[in-house]
């Protein structure tokens, strides 16, 4: 009997193809990555380490920073005879880093916001660093990367919210929030603008962007320990002061003047401003690139306070480099972060990639001559608290944001905040 056994043939063919293709893909990927800009990251790790004669330094960052960092990191590699790989993780970088660290596949250096420190420390994923000269850095930046009495990151940029306004629509900086709302309303009725203000309140709330207003109205989310660290155990989400503050916010909400709207979200806030639909934008230095691209006349000033209220201080955020405690090349990582990163040249270069204020005082001084916004943002952040880095704080953000969104939508303030406080206490335990 003739049986063709096609199956066997096909299966054998597919199996035969397997190693052949794998060879193909290997060469394919190495040739594709072997372009001039990226000769380092192409071949397999063993090959590169052999080629470079030294070790490999792997840096993880988000897409934007990875792109900005790449030329400098590669320069560092060339200078030191090592291979440097800058890799971008697009989503959940911190979670990916912690998981990789647990698995033993951690990069050597990770770049991220300072409020990651708490979680990275509790997972033993980062090591403290010794800054060569603490005084060279912006004190706010050093304070932000200090956690539990130790410095965990080398800061390179400081950022905070401010009020950006379209000077064509609103020539003068508003004296108060009430003043802002008044001008915004006039522009709206005269048809020059469609919204009073672009502040990304969001469908599910945005505590970070609303906090300056809450601060100004006298509210607070949490207490402080005796040594000035945020204390997640003192939940002040529904304290009488905060309730009173949120009542003021409610008056700006959808059932009030309409300055705050849930439909203004992270996706559309900046573009609402740049397209001229709103005269005011509450945002950070990252918005400036877009504002400049839109070719509009603008100015930056402090977020105005409520009349008779406290200053509308924003949270201070810091971007920093961290040394992974389970990295394969810790010495080089420390060398890179504490000695190479902490130079004004690199800070200025990173500033040029994205206009956030350099954390090194010398670098900030260098750029502020050509960029007036730097000082204006700094002034707007005067007196602001660093965004808390303790992991428990995330238990506050979610319920509070939702309560704020509900309040902006017109819900009862006391009821919303009580529910949020209950939720916070439950998850902190």
């Amino acid at each position: 009997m003739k049986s063709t056994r096609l199956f066997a043939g096909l299966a054998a063919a597919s199996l035969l193809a397997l190693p052949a293709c794998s060879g193909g893909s290997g060469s394919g990927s190495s040739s594709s990555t072997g372009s001039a800009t990226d000769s380092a990251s192409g071949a397999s790790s063993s090959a590169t380490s052999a080629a470079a004669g030294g070790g490999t330094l792997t840096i993880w960052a988000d897409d934007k920073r990875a792109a900005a960092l790449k030329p400098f990191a590669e320069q560092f590699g060339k200078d030191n005879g090592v291979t440097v790989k800058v890799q971008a993780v697009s989503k959940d970088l911190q979670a990916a880093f912690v998981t990789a660290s647990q698995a033993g596949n951690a990069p050597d250096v990770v770049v991220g916001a300072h409020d990651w420190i708490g979680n990275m420390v509790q997972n033993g994923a980062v090591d403290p660093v010794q800054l060569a000269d603490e005084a060279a850095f912006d004190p706010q930046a050093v304070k932000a990367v200090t956690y539990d009495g130790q410095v965990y990151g080398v800061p390179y940029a400081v950022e905070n919210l401010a009020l950006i306004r379209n000077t064509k629509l609103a020539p003068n900086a508003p004296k108060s929030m009430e003043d802002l709302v008044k001008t915004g309303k006039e522009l709206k009725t005269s048809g020059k603008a469609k919204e009073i203000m672009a502040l990304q309140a969001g469908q599910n709330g945005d505590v970070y962007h609303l906090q300056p207003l809450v601060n100004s109205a006298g509210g607070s989310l949490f207490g402080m320990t005796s040594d000035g660290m945020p204390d997640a155990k003192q939940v002040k989400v529904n304290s009488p002061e905060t309730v009173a503050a949120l009542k003021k916010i409610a008056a700006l909400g959808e059932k009030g003047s309409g300055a705050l709207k849930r439909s203004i979200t992270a996706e559309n806030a900046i573009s609402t401003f740049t397209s001229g639909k709103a005269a005011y934008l509450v945002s950070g230095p990252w918005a400036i690139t877009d504002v400049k691209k839109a070719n509009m006349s603008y100015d930056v000033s402090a977020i105005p306070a409520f009349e008779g209220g406290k200053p509308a201080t924003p949270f201070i955020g810091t971007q920093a480099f961290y040394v992974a405690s389970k990295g394969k090349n810790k010495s080089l990582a420390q060398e890179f972060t504490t000695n190479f990163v902490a130079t004004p040249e690199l800070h200025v270069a990173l500033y040029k990639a994205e206009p956030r204020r350099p954390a090194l005082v010398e670098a900030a001084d260098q750029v502020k001559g050509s960029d007036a916004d730097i000082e204006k943002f700094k002034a707007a952040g005067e007196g602001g608290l660093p965004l808390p880095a303790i992991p428990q704080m995330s238990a506050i953000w979610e319920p509070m944001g939702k309560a704020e969104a509900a309040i902006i939508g017109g819900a009862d303030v006391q009821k919303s905040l009580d529910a949020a406080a209950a939720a916070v206490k439950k998850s902190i335990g």
Partner: protein
Amino acid sequence: MSTATREATGPAGQPTRPSGKGGWGLSGSSPLALAAKVVLLGMVAAITVWMAMPLIATQSWVLLALLLLSALAIFVVYLQPRYIPPKYLVPGVIFLLLFQVFPVLFTVSTAFTNFGDGHRGSKEEAITAIESSSVKRVKDSATYSLSIATKGDPATGDLVFLLTDPKSKEALIGDATGIKPLEGAEVSSLGRVTAAEGYTILNAGQASTRSKDISNLSVPTDTGAIRAQGISRAYEGVKARAYDKACDCIKDTTTGATWKADGDRGSFVNDKGEALSQGWRVNVGAGNFTRVFQDKTLQTHFLSMLAWNFFFALAVVFGTFAVGLAIALALHHPRLKGLKIYRILIVLPYAMPAFAMMLVWRDMFNQDFGLINQLTGASTNWFGNPWLAKLAVIIIQFWLGYPYMFLVTTGALQSIPTDLTEAAGVDGASKFFSFRTITLPLLFVATAPLLISSFAFNFNNFNAIGFTTEGGPFPPESPQVGGTDLLISYTYRLAFGAGGAQYGFAAAMSLLIFLIVAIISIISFRRTAALEEIN
């Protein structure tokens, strides 16, 4: 595959034919098949050898044993002639076991632990983390310029630190025994030792290959120890906290505070009950499950969430199926012009990246800026009202899903022998009759399992919520459960909301949800048994 069948010849219960015809045994095979089989199994052997080598090199004996057993099993399955199903199942099952079953089982096992952020690793790892994060620079101590050197070969020789004191510019040498002056050293203008007799100074590349040794070297001094910070600087630091085996606790040498190991919590805890943030992973028994049952929010909202979850999944499955089928039927006509173009345009939503389109839809539903309100001239607050938000989520999912059903039912209609339906005649009445009696049942045979799996997928469709409403809108009285929250999105927030990820808790919760879905699926699966035997 030990439970393989004895009815090797198939459904009709035909007696097993003499060996060699139904089987893959070596006897009675054609030369070509024999050759193919030899090549195939040769490949298996080659891959096994290729995979075994690194395992031998790293002395991973358990993995090696597993590998060899698997290879042996494959040989047995393909060399024996009697049991045919395993021959067809083995290739897929190998991957299934490796990359689906094993990760799921492992994850389920974490439901009984406190696995999560702050409790990811072992106790030893926690101790290392606590100790190394407690190293503080000695107050007012010097920062030394550092050169790393070895005695002899750069790759293997004993490491030493060649230091220069910034004030006195004196060259020093430090190793594990202590620090002493270094004779005959060349010091550069920047104050670094550039050469020393009897030592090889490492360049950065060489140093980076000795990274572990450098990190581990601490040079004892009277007040602490000198450690490298990178490869060009060193500082004097003290380890403030250390593990004491005797009391199984962490002691702070500067403040005198102690934290005792608590094996139930997986943390070092002081008298006040405060824990150090670096903990380790321990078994907590059924603790996570009792937490799920004691969750007040869950108790009050579980039924409404479950109801919406069912409604969502059913609405999406049947909505997409009904419409997909209807369109497939409408387009199932030999004389329809432009059929190919229609098909491809209808299927387009499925070709677009789903996450991207969900984000686009979310923007389209925006009350003030969204395309939908702009086109209709309305100012509907889609995501502000729980019912409208539910509708919006279903619409988005429907848009994403109906091309799939269209495609599948189109394929099904093509597979169903057309002459069966065409033979019934040309007049409409009998066409419909033939559709109902022939096409539809066959269609159900083909797609019923699909409907169940589609239900299961949508029941747990995290992305449908995560990329659109994120569970919202949230009523003011309950910021925890939103109008469009599915059980899975609620679980996700609960697990990752407070103080980092709580994988153990999330696994427990998922396991319970999984049981619910599984029971429903099994019950509906039973009903398909009848359909299966339709032929």
